[in-house]
């Protein structure tokens, strides 16, 4: 059995190493029902559940018993902790362990899928047999020996893995954030803080003989503020998220988060609805990347194009926006929510150019669509968990800098709005209509910012809105908020970013008279 040495060698140069400190470190307080203090599990599923390479090969051979274009085994063990501070006390927490195996057989465009939370050979072999029933053909054997995939860089190394952080280290962060927010204004009546962290260990083994092991950390801190002034109550929130460790939460960061949450809340006292109808919309740098996510990102996921259902299906190679518009979807933005060293099919991720100088370049592929189009996978095959088959998904979607300045852009608007913070968005892939909801923004009159606005939905059409991006500034940045993208019942963490941009006309859900 060459497995252990083989894995170790490859791991030394591979992505498995990335998060290794967390697994290797001595663990004073194991917080999962697995022994984190035990000697190194390179493949924790072998150490904890006896899922070694011979068993993986048996499972893959079972998946390929009726033939397969490809097949994979996806093992996952996720430990997560959520804590909330409400009315000044930290009196509620929830923790969970979610583990299981997803087993998939792919034949052309067809997929058989089964999962089990029982990581026993019997349960997994039965699930593999179910998946294999999708195919009718000649058996395919798992290629041996396995080779460990290698990643070129560490995207989310942590000084201390979440499994090694005691609960007592987390609680002071919640209290400090509450204290920082409360002192900022006498009108603040309540500050609620929600905390989340998780550590996801995955192992992906493929029929063509690759194994990929990864540890994916995630954390999120949410500050919700309620304030009352002259009988009017308003509330709003701000949050920070990323593939980060506990040391990310410096006091400076907590103060900035508290201030952002309070600012976003207090401005609502004076905010009004803008007028209804079509008008120029300035999208502030950062979270406004939601425009890209909805207006074009989903439409370029290859599954919608492979089936001809996207409005972008026939546009590759064509100009779709001004020549200063370059849009990228990247899995390699370190420490962001959208960062992922390998996708959930074991393919390395990359920075995929979707639109280059205004011209549509290509799609986000999973393995099925890459095979369909005869191109290399872009590392965009993602899944919510072992309970789901992978789909082409976005990672961190952003637009590169443009030639204008924010001042120029605002000054050019006669009557319009600036969109600054957002809660959610959605798109109809076929018609291209998308919406996003603005929580905070500003009215612009005669090229000047005149008043705060709130609670308006924007609706537009993807290709039309892209054509109407008439200006873009040089201040592109990724938002640090905890965005989750939903598709086909699956949620995955994503990031988004934008420079300050002018869309010359979109429909604003305001109020007239």
């Amino acid at each position, binding site marked *: 059995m060459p497995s252990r040495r083989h894995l170790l060698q490859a791991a030394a140069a591979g992505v498995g190493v990335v998060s290794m400190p967390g697994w290797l470190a001595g663990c004073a307080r194991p917080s999962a*029902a697995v022994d984190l203090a035990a000697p190194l599990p390179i493949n924790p599923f072998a150490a904890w559940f006896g899922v070694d390479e011979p068993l993986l090969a048996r499972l893959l051979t079972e998946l390929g018993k009726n033939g397969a274009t490809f097949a994979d085994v996806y093992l996952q063990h996720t430990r997560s902790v959520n804590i909330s501070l*409400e009315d000044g006390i930290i*009196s509620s927490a929830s923790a969970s362990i979610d583990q299981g195996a997803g087993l998939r057989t792919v034949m052309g465009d*067809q997929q058989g899928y089964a999962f*089990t*939370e029982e990581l026993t050979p019997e349960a997994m072999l039965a699930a593999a047999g179910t998946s294999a029933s999708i195919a009718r053909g000649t058996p395919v054997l798992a290629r041996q020996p396995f080779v460990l995939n290698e990643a070129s860089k560490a995207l989310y190394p942590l000084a201390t893995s979440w499994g090694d952080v005691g609960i007592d280290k987390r609680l002071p962060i919640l209290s400090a954030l509450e204290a920082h927010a409360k002192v900022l204004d006498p009108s603040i009546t309540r500050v609620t803080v929600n905390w989340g962290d998780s550590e996801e260990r995955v192992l992906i083994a493929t029929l063509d003989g690759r194994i990929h092991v990864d540890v994916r950390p995630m954390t999120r801190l949410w500050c919700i503020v309620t304030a009352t002034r002259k009988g009017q109550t308003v509330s709003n929130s701000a949050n920070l998220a990323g593939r980060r460790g506990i040391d990310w939460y410096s006091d400076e960061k907590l103060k900035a988060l508290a201030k952002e949450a309070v600012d976003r809340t207090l401005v609502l006292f004076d905010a009004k609805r803008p007028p209804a109808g079509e008008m120029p919309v300035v999208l502030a740098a950062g979270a406004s990347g939601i425009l890209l996510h909805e207006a074009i990102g989903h439409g370029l996921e290859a599954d919608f194009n492979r089936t001809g259902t996207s409005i972008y299906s026939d546009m590759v190679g064509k100009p779709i926006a001004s020549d200063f518009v370059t849009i990228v979807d990247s899995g390699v933005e370190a420490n962001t929510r959208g960062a992922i060293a390998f996708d959930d099919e074991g393919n390395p991720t990359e920075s995929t150019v979707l639109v280059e100088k205004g011209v549509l370049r290509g799609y986000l592929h999973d393995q099925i669509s890459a095979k369909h189009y005869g191109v290399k996978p872009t590392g965009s095959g993602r899944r919510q968990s072992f309970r789901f088959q992978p789909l082409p998904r976005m990672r961190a979607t952003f637009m590169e800098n443009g030639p204008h300045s924010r001042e120029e852009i605002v000054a050019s608007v006669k009557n319009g709005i600036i969109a600054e913070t957002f809660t959610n968005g959605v798109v*109809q892939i076929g018609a291209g209509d998308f919406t996003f909801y603005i929580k905070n923004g500003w009215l612009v009159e005669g090229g000047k910012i005149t008043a705060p606005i709130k609670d308006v939905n924007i609706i537009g059409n993807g*290709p039309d809105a892209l054509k109407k991006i008439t200006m873009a500034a040089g201040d592109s940045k990724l938002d640090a908020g905890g965005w989750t993208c939903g598709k086909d019942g699956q949620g995955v963490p994503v990031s988004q970013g934008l420079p300050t941009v002018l869309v010359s006309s979109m429909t604003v859900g305001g109020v007239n008279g």
Partner: protein
Amino acid sequence: MADSTLVERARDVVERAKRAGAQEVFAVAGRSRSVELQRRDGATERLKEATSRSVSVQLWVDGRYSSQSTTDLRPDALDRFLADAVALTRALQPDPARLITDPTLFPTTVAAIEVEDPALVAGLDSAARERWVETMETEARRHERVISCTSNLTFRSATGACATSNGFVGLSASTDIWPSVEVTLRDEGDKRAADGDGYGARFLADLPDAATIGKNALAYTVARLGSAKVPTRKTTMVVDRQAAGSLISRLLSTANGSSIQQGRSFVADKVGKAIASSKLSILDDPLLPRGLGSRAFDGEGIAARTLPIVEKGVLTNVYVDTYYGRKGKLAVTTGGPSNRVVALGSKDRAAWIAAIGDGILVTSFMGGNSDANSGDFSFGIRGHLIQKGEIGAPIGEMNVTGNLLSLFASLSGVGSDPWRASTILAPTLVFDNVQFSGA
């Protein structure tokens, strides 16, 4: 797994947690089986099957509280999990409002809610599943503009047992089944018209037939062809029964103990007062036979009973669990909604459209949100113009904006046609003088 085994597992977790140091324990052991078949453009696209199980537990330790869940059910792993859970709980701050459910709230009889279909427990064989998705697809494809058509059948059978340290043992078993079809048609230029139809029920026998779902899916999608922007206006809004539930859900989104105690509710001071026109009455009915939201007890074990939420426009009750009841000094009802049944009017959608003459028909809401404190909302919509009492051209890129309390104050008509494939059984709703923004 037999029901008795699940009960034993839940009881076993209670005992293990107590040994680990918890004073009070609420444990739930669950198991479910799901099967999904998806067909696209003439071939099976996805076949998915799984049997899933988990344990979740709420712990009260030295005046402190936490909730935990795991899918690692090996006995030694469970013990370690519970030891960690107790340690985590001890590290939190005490809260006198966190107590296990008072035993007087637990059910004393078994409610006859009829939510488990023996036919679905046995499962549909593969030939029957194939027939469903093939028939739906065949009917949905009968158009020359079809680009793609996806039909799906998903069914599930779930069993859950709960056991508590203060004497409650409860068992629930349910089934549900969801056929659906999505159709994409070639429209003008690069545009595609996409829509579909779907249904859900506890019992196989309660589903419409597969051909009807397929035909509806195609008809709804054909109706979307040539959708265009129309000018900004204020007019009458007719909301289709399939979209009406989402408005009801928004109206009641802050009618709960947590939102009210936390001071983030636009109905906080409205209990006993009007939140809608007198045309609106809503009953929360957990005992509705075969209801998708039916249950014998809620997540805290509180016995199910019907609860009037809105009576002739007046907010009569809100959802309050034991924690926020104690903390906010509110009367405990139940932690959250079951089936929300909207009282019916006398006319169906077609009759309302004929009666109002001109306006906008909303067939679905698309994104948007609302503010918890003010009830201000703004949603994208899809729908049609209503002209001279008939459904006219399809509308794209339009928002509807306003305030939920004033919107529902302008509710002028309620349909006779409830949508039953939802936990909100709402009919067509008609609202006067609504702000739409378009071109």
